């Protein structure tokens, strides 16, 4: 098992209590209504919010363990997180955005151009995010994420900001790119069809609990 999550967190309307694992190369869809705890689960794995209790392990390393008082800071978790808004840095060019997560400076240039080419955005390298369409911004966010070579990839409603036509053309491409990355992937969505199309398996979340 690559990613193991077993956490508990009391939220305003319900308690999030979730237990699952994702293996290498698997794309697991986390399905549920808005406000069912999907994003909270991703944020807990990324270390953005702190669960009240439980354990999170990634490739055998403990990221969080409430009993052993382990809480690895987000910076050291090596998680790839694509925000719903993409969260591109507005004052950096596309190339600078993609370069942000590359740890080895000697490979920075090469890694940036490889990932820009992979997602067909090399011609936008010197543009700023606000001059790009939603679909192009999504590719930049994905290129930035992949360039950081994460140990797990988490996508929060990756298509919610896109129109339908664009979705269809992007989805196939995104799927093959993700499959090639070879790490566990968590895909959050409220759209059942989207999850079925994409994911190897899906988990249904309702009011903080997984439905059988």
């Amino acid at each position: 098992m690559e990613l193991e999550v077993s956490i508990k967190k009391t939220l305003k309307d319900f308690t999030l209590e979730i237990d699952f694992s994702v293996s290498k190369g698997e794309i697991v869809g986390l399905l549920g209504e808005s406000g069912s705890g999907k994003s909270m689960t991703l944020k807990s794995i990324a270390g953005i919010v702190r669960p009240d209790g439980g354990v999170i392990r990634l490739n055998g390393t403990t990221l969080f363990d409430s009993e052993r008082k382990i809480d690895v800071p987000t910076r050291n978790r090596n998680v790839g997180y694509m925000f719903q808004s993409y969260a591109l840095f507005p004052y950096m060019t596309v190339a600078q955005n993609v370069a942000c997560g590359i740890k080895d400076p000697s490979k920075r240039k090469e890694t940036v151009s490889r990932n820009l080419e992979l997602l067909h955005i090399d011609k936008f390298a010197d543009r700023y995010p606000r001059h790009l369409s939603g679909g192009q911004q999504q590719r930049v966010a994905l290129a930035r994420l992949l360039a950081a070579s994460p140990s797990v990839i988490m996508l929060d409603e990756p298509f919610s900001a896109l129109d339908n036509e664009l979705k269809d053309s992007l989805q196939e491409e995104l799927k093959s790119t993700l499959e090639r990355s070879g790490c566990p992937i968590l895909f959050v969505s409220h759209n059942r069809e989207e999850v079925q199309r994409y994911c190897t398996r899906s988990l249904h979340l309702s009011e903080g609990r997984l439905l059988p």
Partner: protein
Amino acid sequence: MFDYAPLWISLRATVLAAVIVFALGTLAARLCLDIRGRFAWVLDVLFTLPMVLPPTVLGFFLLVIFGRNTFFGKLLSDAGMPVIFSWHATVIAAVVVSFPLMYKGAKGAFEQVDQEHVWAARTLGMSEFGIFVKVMFPEAWPGILAGLALSFARALGEFGATLMIAGNIPGKTQTIPMAIYFATAGGDMRTAWIWVAVITIVSCVALAVMNHFGNKGRS
């Protein structure tokens, strides 16, 4: 021959104070973002206080701190750097009165920075220092610049605290506001008019320059 000394004394005090306040105010604002609870509240009050206290009260405190009767003042005096009635005092007074404007401006600007950008940077493994320099600072820049413009204007117009700790020594500590006050008090309206015009022009030019750079940062 018209004596231009107040212009140079004012510019020296204001520019130096702006540089110091820019660094201190930005750092203080960044520091306060990480501190939560009662201590944060105490710090915020402390950093904002110079804005609401009368300048004469600030001058009084500065006299107490830097005066020759205190340990600190004596130390500086013995080291050959007496503060009271020196040109350094004009800078110190300007720093103290203009600091809250820079601090408030920078703090507001940092609070406006999109938290998702900060978290995205953390997931990418960027250091907190890297995030501050590359993500937060550029996004907060227009607000920081607005704070700097206000503190520059405040430092240039500083009168009360300066009079108390730097005095009104022509050619040494007499700033433009001081020259205006004493020219008017002495009935020399021509000199007063000249300085009023000069300080108005300097203020307008400074604000125009900062607005220009602020707009440039946005587009």
